[in-house]
């Protein structure tokens, strides 16, 4: 009788939360059992929680007890023929088919079964309403439970997104493990800087470990339009850019060798899939149309597939050499802004070997070239 002299006044927060949780867990018992014993069990649970020195000990007992007794009670309910179906007592018995003449028995059976199903659905609806009311009555518990769920689901989703893109899904390019980004690090600072255009030219001439190497620099360009003038992130790419990434265009073609010469006078552009969809509504007759850049109109010759997003911001690609004059800083060896150099390792060459070779490449500006997996 130790639990009897306790007063209800000083119930701690943990005990209150535990009781709410236990009341929920009681719903796992069959309805009849719950209707008869739930109140008494709540009382016992309260006494148990208040008397145990550690609330976790009480919970260990309660959970073990639930795990053992819930299946037992369900088994009793199901296996006992005397147990009445749910809700039976509330609105009268189903039509008894014992008294019906033989010839209408099948229908009566079906009706009786339908009656049971509808009673069961009502019972579920009642349980659901009870659950929502209980939640509304215990707002702190509800908020804590929802916050726990939200954080748990959110964290899982976030981690999965990262794991999926970084570990599970490879880059959308052929032989992605041979693709590298090239950068330089200052001997004193150790950061990873982009390479300048002269660096790129020297590397291309001297490296034996890289099968291909390409350079890209970005700029947003004003695009005129009838209803929408916008700034479009445009990537100026060196020759061999698309062949390095081994991606064929979805429509049209990429740049020809002669279009990538400095004095070719060519003005051609390849669009990203997203830009083609957004700006041109996926127009199938896009090839040959003019991209009305304010300074230098370009002819659209191709559209890349949806997965091709390098550099990630690029909406339009155009050859660098014919418009190199737009970049007065391009020939400065120490200008390293908004530029990316990518390379493809020769077959059989490891990242370490390529890095070792690059260590030996001497530049006029003191820096050390390094590779990083793209």
């Amino acid at each position, binding site marked *: *009788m*130790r*639990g*009897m002299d306790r007063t209800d006044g000083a119930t701690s927060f943990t005990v209150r939360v535990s009781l709410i949780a236990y009341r929920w867990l009681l719903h796992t*018992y069959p309805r009849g*059992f719950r209707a*008869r*014993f739930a*109140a*008494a*069990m709540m*009382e*016992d*649970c309260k*006494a*148990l929680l208040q008397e145990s020195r550690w609330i976790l000990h009480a919970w260990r*007992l*309660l959970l*073990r*007890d*639930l795990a*053992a*007794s*819930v299946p*037992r*009670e369900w*088994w*009793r309910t199901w*296996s*006992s023929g005397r147990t009445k179906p749910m809700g039976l007592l509330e609105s009268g018995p189903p039509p008894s088919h014992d008294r019906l003449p033989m010839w209408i028995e099948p229908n009566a059976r079906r009706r009786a079964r339908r009656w049971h199903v509808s009673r069961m659905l009502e019972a579920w609806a009642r349980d659901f309403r009870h659950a929502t009311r209980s939640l509304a009555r215990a707002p702190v518990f509800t908020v804590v439970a929802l916050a726990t769920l939200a954080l748990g689901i959110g964290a899982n989703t976030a981690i999965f997104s990262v794991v999926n893109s970084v570990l599970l899904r490879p880059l959308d390019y052929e032989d992605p493990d041979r693709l590298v980004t090239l950068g330089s690090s200052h001997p004193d600072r150790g950061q990873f800087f982009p390479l300048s255009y002269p660096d790129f030219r020297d590397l291309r001439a001297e490296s034996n470990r890289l099968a291909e190497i390409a350079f890209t620099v970005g700029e947003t360009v004003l695009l005129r339009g009838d209803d929408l003038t916008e700034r479009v992130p445009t990537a100026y790419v060196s020759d061999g850019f698309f062949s390095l990434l081994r991606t064929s265009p979805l429509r049209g073609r990429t740049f020809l060798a002669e279009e990538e010469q400095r004095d070719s006078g060519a003005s051609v552009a390849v669009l990203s899939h997203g830009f083609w969809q957004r700006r041109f509504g996926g127009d199938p007759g896009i090839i040959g149309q003019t991209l009305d850049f304010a300074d230098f109109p370009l002819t659209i010759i191709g559209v890349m597939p949806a997965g091709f997003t390098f550099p990630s911001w690029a909406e339009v690609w155009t050859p660098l050499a014919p418009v190199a004059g737009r970049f007065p800083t391009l020939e400065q060896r120490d200008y390293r802004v908004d530029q990316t150099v990518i390379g493809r390792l020769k077959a059989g060459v490891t990242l370490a070997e390529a890095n070792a070779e690059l260590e030996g490449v001497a530049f006029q500006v003191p820096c050390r070239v390094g590779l990083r997996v793209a």
Partner: protein
Amino acid sequence: MDRMAADKPLTPAVFHALLALADGAAHGYAIMQAVEETAGFQMGPGTVYGTLSRLEESGWVEEATAQGGDARRRYWRLTGAGHTALRAESARLAALADLVRAKKLAPHGAQVR
């Protein structure tokens, strides 16, 4: 579920619940505590009330009206059949204890737990 029979050994939960009610009516929580003291294992509320309702089905216990006790609690007491079953099981256990002692496996006056 099969009715419990007085001539078969009882499960520990059933025996200890009956034992806890031997001194008079008690509520579920008192039974839990008595079981913990005499048997050394803890019984949760679900087990206690499951056991009690099975005992009731067998006609061994019945609900008693609370006399001066806590009105929120449900009190239970042994029926005549329950007393008989408890005595039968106790006799069986006593015989078993005699046998164990005759084989010198346990000293006289050993603690229950």
